[in-house]
């Protein structure tokens, strides 16, 4: 699929904003449970970062729409459309962040604050799933239509947000207890995220597609060749669903995204963790934040361009990576049998 840069910006930036919120909420919860709460101004600063990231993502998403003034109508079908659910949840999340910040500002009772934080985390998870399921439920785009998609979107957002949150904590000199707790959580998230990503990339190698040129045309013959597309110039069908830029380099880009999104932040955070324990200088979180954001952008770009739409069969643009017999694949979880088998 052709990568829509406004959507890459939206999913990466808003995802990071959601991650920062979860970081701040869990950080304060751990501080609260340990009796050394994070100073309100630190959390409010962090919320400002989260708000800025989310609003930047939302602003980018508006460039995706040709009729921006009608954007409000996109809440109409929240019962059916994941996109509509995302549009409903995004303002709820932003409003929730503002309320959460105000509670700190007026010095509300800690229990109320923690309850609001918990509710916010639920909204964030629902928002991650809504965003990812826009792509995840398109089952005939086999690279997208998998449970890996929502899991990957959630973990990527949390990881890239976490490093931003850690940078805020470092600059505001948050209490050691909350910082250490969140750093330990970061390693869990990053390792799980890395494993999920590697499994996801492995799954997408040589993926079986139940749709073939034979089912697309309804002609049962092994040799079918496109003679003409019916148009002398590129059309919407050949440009929107098929993207060949950097086709040979996508494997390298996947490696770059893994290094920038997981390995560099993990190394930087490990340095910081040891530095905090030994009383040294913990200053590498901003480096991790920049690296993770770059990695997340590359990762999302690869995600979009790797999607192969079923209609590409009609235009000879579907890659020839076909598993031979679906019945032989029945032992494999990700190879659904065609209907009737």
């Amino acid at each position: 699929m052709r990568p829509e840069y406004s959507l890459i910006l939206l999913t990466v930036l808003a995802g990071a904003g959601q991650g920062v919120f979860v970081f701040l909420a869990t950080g304060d919860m751990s501080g609260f449970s340990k009796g050394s709460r994070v100073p309100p101004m630190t959390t409010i600063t962090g919320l400002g970062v989260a708000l800025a990231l989310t609003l930047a993502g939302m602003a980018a998403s508006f460039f995706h729409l040709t009729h921006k003034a009608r954007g409000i109508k996109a809440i109409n079908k929240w019962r059916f459309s994941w996109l509509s659910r995302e549009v409903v949840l995004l303002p709820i999340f932003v409003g929730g962040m503002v309320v959460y910040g105000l509670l700190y500002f007026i010095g509300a009772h800690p229990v109320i604050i923690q309850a609001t934080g918990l509710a916010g985390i639920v909204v964030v998870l629902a928002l991650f799933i809504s965003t990812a399921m826009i792509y995840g439920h398109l089952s005939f785009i086999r690279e997208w239509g998998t449970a890996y998609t929502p899991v990957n979107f959630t973990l990527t957002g949390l990881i890239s947000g976490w490093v931003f949150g850690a940078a805020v904590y470092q600059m505001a000199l948050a209490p050691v207890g909350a910082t250490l707790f969140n750093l330990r959580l970061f390693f869990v998230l990053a390792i799980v995220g890395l494993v999920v990503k590697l499994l996801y990339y492995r799954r997408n190698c040589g993926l079986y597609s139940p749709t073939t040129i034979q089912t697309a045309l309804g002609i049962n013959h092994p040799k079918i060749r496109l003679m003409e597309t019916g148009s002398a110039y590129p059309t919407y069908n050949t440009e929107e669903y098929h993207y060949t830029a950097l086709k040979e380099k996508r494997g390298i880009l996947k490696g770059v995204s893994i290094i920038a999104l997981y390995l560099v932040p993990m190394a930087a955070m490990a340095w910081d963790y040891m530095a905090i324990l030994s009383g040294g200088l913990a200053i590498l979180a901003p480096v991790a934040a920049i690296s993770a954001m770059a990695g997340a952008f590359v990762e999302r770009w690869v995600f979009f361009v790797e999607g192969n739409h079923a209609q590409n069969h009609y235009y000879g643009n579907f890659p020839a990576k076909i598993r031979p017999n679906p019945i032989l694949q029945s032992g494999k979880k990700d190879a659904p049998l065609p209907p009737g088998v």
Partner: protein
Amino acid sequence: MFCAIPPPERSEAMTKQLALVIDLNTCVGCHACGAICKSWNTSGQFGPLTDHNPYGKDVTGVWFNRIQTYEVGEYPDVEVVHFPKSCMHCVDAPCVPVCPTNATYKREEDGIVLVNYNDCIGCKYCSWACPYGCREFDHHDGVMKKCTLCVDRIYDQTLPEDERVPACVLACPARARSFGDINDPESEVSRAIRDKMGYKLMPETGANPANHYLPRRKTHVALDLDQVTVKKQKAIIVTRKSAQEGETLIEDFGIGG
């Protein structure tokens, strides 16, 4: 016990579902259906199908009906198949539930899938959700457009009754396209689907398209070779008796006696 709510019973009279049936056996690939579609719809009720750079080098524009050509088989056993493709007006149209603004909808009265251009925000989600690639984005108007099944023709009382069909059906010189209600068992399209083995594209995607295609057909005579020989001999014998000039006839048939 898990089915607390019984599934809704289907009524005997199914709702109307208008659709096209395209006969690949007779389609000659002349692109008349595509050209008349563009011509009718660009001057029809729904506004133009815009072209970009129409006289320039990289011309592109919105078409509802595109025709591809495929080579099936290898020389000498080869056939060229022309394949017109427009919106399938799916029964379970995947483009409809994904539309966040309700701009895309399926009409209950006749099953036509339409786009309300006043509600479309141009997010292109429906075109991603359509497995057939039958929706085209109009970059000039900023809305998604698609085949309307000529809804502005088929109910137009000012047209003669036999012309109240989609423009492509009217234009096809090979009469490869027919139009009607596929849920009415007595309609022309239903008969064609039944009698000529009409099929749906990409059944595995679950979209349940309303448009059907009729396959290539060849007339084959299946005969048992032994039976043929016996019958010919019998025929020869009979002819001999009746004509009384058997030798000449046998040579005429080219079979040694």
